[in-house]
Every structure is written in C-alpha cells, then in structure tokens.
C-alpha cells in the first residue's frame, strides 16, 4: 500500500467531519478503554508482569541471532521449512512460490498486519492466487477494498449499514432485499459464506503473535476461530512473521500472553491461542502436510541498532491506539498507512521512510497516555520526539516552521534578548486584548486561534516577578 501520510492534515480534517467515523470512534473509547482498565484492575500482578515481559524481550533482542537460529533449527527438526526474507518483495516471492508449488488457486488468510505491511493480497491476486481474508473485520474491508483502520479491529470505522451494503454486493445467489439489519444476521451470513472457502482453500496463510525458539512453534491468538480453520484445513500452512516476534520459551510466551488480550480488548485471554509446530505427524488425522515459516526482516534489524530498538518490544495489542486522543479524533485511515496511532507514528517512518511520513510524529500531543498503557513499556513519546528531531535535521519541516524554530532558538540562547522580546510580546498581547483577558485572533497564530481563544497575559512575566522578590 502506498502511504498517503503526507496528507495527514487534510485526511484528519475530513475524518473529523465524518459522522459515521465519529460514532465508531466513540464506541471504541467506550469499549476498549473501559474493558482494559477493568481487566488490569483485576490482576494485581499486572505491573510485575510488565516488568518481566520487558526484561525477557530486551534479553531476546540482545541475543536475537541466537534465538532465531534456535527457532529455525526446531522448525526444521519438526519437519517445517524456514524461508529467510530481507524485505517485502522477497517475502511475497517466497509465499507465491509455495502457492505455485502447491498448485494453489485460493489461499485463506488469518489476520496478519505483516501481510498488510508488504501488500501481500494485491500481489497474490495479480499473480493468479485469490486471497480470502477470514477474520470478519478483515473480510469486510477486503470486500470494500480498503486498508484496516485499527491493528486489532480492522473494520472499527464502519457501521452495520456499510457492512450490509458490502455483503449485498459480494454475496450472490441470495435475495437482494433480505433483512441485514442485525449484526447477528450479518455474522451468520459471513460464517456461511466462509465455511465453503475454508474447506476449498489449498493454502492457509496466517501471521504470528509469537515465535518460540524452544519448540519451533508459531503462535496465533484469535477470538473467531478463523485463524485455526485457516491453518488446519488446507494442505499447506504458511506463517508470515517478522524476526522481532521470537521469544525463547513457552513460559516466556505465557508472560506476554497474560498481557496481550488484557491490553488489547480487555479480555482475560483471547478465545483461541494456538501453538503450531511443524506439519501433520505421520499418524495425525488432520492438519497441513507442509509447514512454512516466512521469516521477514523488512527493516527490523536496522531498528535494532539504533534509537528505535525499544519499538521492537511491541506486541501489537493496540492499547496505545485505543488511548490516543489524536487517533480518537481522526481514526486510523488519516495516518495514511497500515499502522495508525502512536505505535504507527513510530513504526511507519522506520519502515517506509521519514520523507513520506514526517507528518506522523507531529500527530501527537505527547500527552504520554500511550506509554502509560503500553504493556511492554515502550517510551513512545520519546521515540516520537526522536523522529521530530530527525525531521528537523533532514529539512523535512515546512520553511515557516523551521524559521520559527530558528528564531526561537536564537532568542532562547540569549537571555537578555529573550526577556526583552517576551516583555514586549506580553505588553502587546495585553493591549490587543483590551482588558477582555482573551484574544480571538493573534497575528501569525491564526491556525491556533481558529478553534479557540488565547488567554491574554495577565501581568508581568515569571522572570520579572522573580526579580521583584515575589518568591512564594
């Protein structure tokens, strides 16, 4: 998917004027935030688990090469194959080669953000393999040919009427005037449509929430059961995962799983957590004959060596997104790429380049709520600040903003000048306010005062008061 993040401001304005989206965002806040808070309050050990998860992930990242090699060895030992891929192009080629070798015409898919990241669906379709998304949310947005607007709840921006319209268009052979008012009816129709496709697919493609070095297992976490049908019924199972997903042991996985669902949806645990290890055994009665892990770097190893290493602890729970006031106002599509919200504004510049995404690190008030709710203690505001610095250094900020910052820095490093200018500005603003105490318009700050008044300075500044001895 080509990023449209350069248009963040225009995207955001359109999003805030969209009543359907605003309703959906209100539901998200009332749902995920409240449920997460309740789930966390119920588990006194939550903070201790966070500390443990952070330590185990930092340990794994510090020895990532060893754990990747150990994971690979176990996959091979249990009869699977690991395909190492440097970038999205290599991963797509690897997936297609496996599909072709299996003579696959359709591939069912579990929800995978990495597949979105590399644009797998479009690629498969162009090359004669029809991808079928099976997660209800992903299925709906696939029918509407749009990207996910949330990493956990991809169709969160839609209402039931829009889902019904998509189903009427896509599901042939049903009465066009059927009643599709209730979500239950929509779900049952999707379930019926999907059953035949689960059973007909030649290949099943899933992502992975975790990879386990101890056993060579890949882990998926779902509520619907679609991921398990995807990886159990076809002859071939392909797991698409990036290198940062590996943890050493099953016990380490347990720690992260205690945090994941609670942080994501406020559930104690998702309904199905499945650990898949290799293809079907000789005496097994079901399961895929082939088990492939497409192990993808796509920018992760570069992040490992720099300022953004902490971001590799991310377990994609979406808590930062659910609690971000900016996401809550504009939704996911405004961000213009597959990862929205605070985690996306840190990740997207690293994955697609800051040139395309320089506006995203600014799409934050740095209020710190994201860091507070992050189960992996990722310092998201600090990482966003790093990207702002890079954007400034690389001249990716508009000329006016650069000039403003240059003037401010010139004045701020010369105390006499700073004091003179602020005293003058304070005096000027007081005059402009004409005793009302507020300013509806301020020269050079029209953008700021368009939506609110600026309180006028009420008297001498802090430094003047300090000098006059008002030290309280």
């Amino acid at each position: 998917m080509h990023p449209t993040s350069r248009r963040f401001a225009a995207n955001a304005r359109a999003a805030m004027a969209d009543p359907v989206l605003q309703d959906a965002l209100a539901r998200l806040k009332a749902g995920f935030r409240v449920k997460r808070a309740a789930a966390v309050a119920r588990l006194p050990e939550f903070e201790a688990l966070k500390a443990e998860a952070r330590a185990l992930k930092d340990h794994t990242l510090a020895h990532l090469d060893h754990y990747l090699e150990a994971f690979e060895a176990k996959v091979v030992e249990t009869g699977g194959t690991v395909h190492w891929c440097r970038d999205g192009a290599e991963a797509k080629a690897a997936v297609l080669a496996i599909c072709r070798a299996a003579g696959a015409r359709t591939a069912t898919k579990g929800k995978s953000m990495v597949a979105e990241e590399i644009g797998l669906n479009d690629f498969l379709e162009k090359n004669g393999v029809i991808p079928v998304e099976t997660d209800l949310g992903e299925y709906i947005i696939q029918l509407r040919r749009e990207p996910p607007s949330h990493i956990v709840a991809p169709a969160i921006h839609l209402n039931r009427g829009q889902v019904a319209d998509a189903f009427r268009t896509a599901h042939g052979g049903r009465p066009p005037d059927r009643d599709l008012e209730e979500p239950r009816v929509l779900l049952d129709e999707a379930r019926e449509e999907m059953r035949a496709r689960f059973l007909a697919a030649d290949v099943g493609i899933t992502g992975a929430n975790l990879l386990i070095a101890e056993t060579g297992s890949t882990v998926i976490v779902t509520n619907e059961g679609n991921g398990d049908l995807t990886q159990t019924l076809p002859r071939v199972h392909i797991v698409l995962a990036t290198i940062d997903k590996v943890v050493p042991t099953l016990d380490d996985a347990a720690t992260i799983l205690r945090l994941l669902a609670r942080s994501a949806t406020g559930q104690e645990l998702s309904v199905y957590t499945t650990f898949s290890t290799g293809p079907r055994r000789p005496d097994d009665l079901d399961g895929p004959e082939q088990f492939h892990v497409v192990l993808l770097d796509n920018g992760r190893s570069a992040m490992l060596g720099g300022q953004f290493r902490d971001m590799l602890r991310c377990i994609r729970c979406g808590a930062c997104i659910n609690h971000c006031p900016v996401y809550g106002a504009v939704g996911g599509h405004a961000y213009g790429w597959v990862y929205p919200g605070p985690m996306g504004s840190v990740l997207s510049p690293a994955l697609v380049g800051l040139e395309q995404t320089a506006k995203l690190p600014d799409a934050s008030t740095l209020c710190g709520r994201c860091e507070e709710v992050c189960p992996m203690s990722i310092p998201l505001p600090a990482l966003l600040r790093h990207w702002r610095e890079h954007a400034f250094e690389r001249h990716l900020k508009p000329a006016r903003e650069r000039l403003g910052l240059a003037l401010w820095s010139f004045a701020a490093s010369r105390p006499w000048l700073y004091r003179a200018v602020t005293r003058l500005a304070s005096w000027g603003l007081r005059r402009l306010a004409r005793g009302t105490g507020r300013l509806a318009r301020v020269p050079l700050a029209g953008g700021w005062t368009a939506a609110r008044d600026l309180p006028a300075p009420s008297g001498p500044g802090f430094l003047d008061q300090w000098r006059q001895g008002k030290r309280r």
Partner: protein
Amino acid sequence: MSDARATILDSVRRALRRGPPPETLRAELDRRMAEPRPNVIPARGKGEPAELIERFAAMATEMSAIIERIPTAAAAPAAVARLLAESGLPPQVAAAPALSGLDWTGAGLSARFGAAGRGDAVSVVPAFRAVAETGTCIVRSGPDAPTTLNFLPDLHVVLVRTADVVGAYEDAWKALRKAGAWPRTVTWITGPSRTADIEQTLLLGAHGPRRLHVLLADGP
C-alpha cells in the same frame, strides 16, 4: 534464500555490535531455554486443588462456557446424550479417538471417531489440562485427538478430569514437556468463538463453535 539468511543474521549482529555469540554465551542461552526461569505467576493461578477446580469453573463460566459437573468420565456419554436431547439435536457426535473407550452406544448415541467434517454438528474431545487462572481448556493434537474437532462443529464438548485442573499455564507446559513427542498443535480454549468486529457488538459463534460445554468429571 540462504543468502538472505546470512544477510539478516549479519545485519542483526552489526546492530548488536558484535560477531556470532561465543560458545560460552550460546551454552548459557541454551540453558535458559532448557530450564525456564520461574515466571511471575498471578496469585489466582495458585492454590489447593479444590480451590483451583472452583476457580476454573467460575472463570470458564465468565467466558461464556457452560460447566457441567459429572461424577466420572464414564458418565460423559449420558451427559452428552442429555445435552443433545435438550438442544433438539440428533444423537450423533464426532468424537476424539481418545474417547473411544467410553460407552457411547449404551447412552443411545452414534459416535464417529476421527477428524471433523463439514456435516458434524457436535464434537467431544478430552482436555489435556485445564487452567484455573483464566478458565482455559488446553487441548493438544495427535492421532487420538484431531484438531478440526475443536473448530468445525457448532457445539464443542470438552471433557475435563478434575485431576487435570492446574493453576497456571506454566503447570500445563511442565506436564506437556514430560508427555513425550511435541504435538503439532496445542490450543488454549477460553470460551466459545466470538467476534466484535461489527460495531463492537459482542456476538458468540463467529467461525468456530457457537457453544462450549465443559464436562467436569471427578473420577475416571
């Protein structure tokens, strides 16, 4: 792809500012994998057996599973027959071969042992362990326990022996590591399948089972 493998590992090592780990370090990391350190276990994952059984039942109920206590595993077929009659379903089940020793015919049921197919409405499988912490049933695949039974049928019946109820996930891992060859799949099941993808409305019965019925048996 071996080229890509070398490039990725090189790139990881460059990022970590070191070469391949020395043998002593590798041995230490392998030891960490072979002997997992004790985890932080939530208090609710610990307790006396009777307490854990009660907690498992309470948590599973909260996750929308139905818990039915039965005296022995041998009473499972009769319980399933009752359940099917109450639900207005025909007396047919697809069951895990591991349960072929129970008297299904005697309970008036026609049981087929093997993988699930499209027409199977009801499945019965044994749990390897059940976890009190979150009311989770752990099933593993094998010739005697096909995976499809857990996902295709609408009504999913899981037989849990109270002796197999443990406190925390780690207790189940310990037991599974001892149980021999590692199974193709291990699945933690916590309630019946669900989705909230349409307007955040929680609906049970997404792509997997619509109902999860747990038979909790005290004896063999």
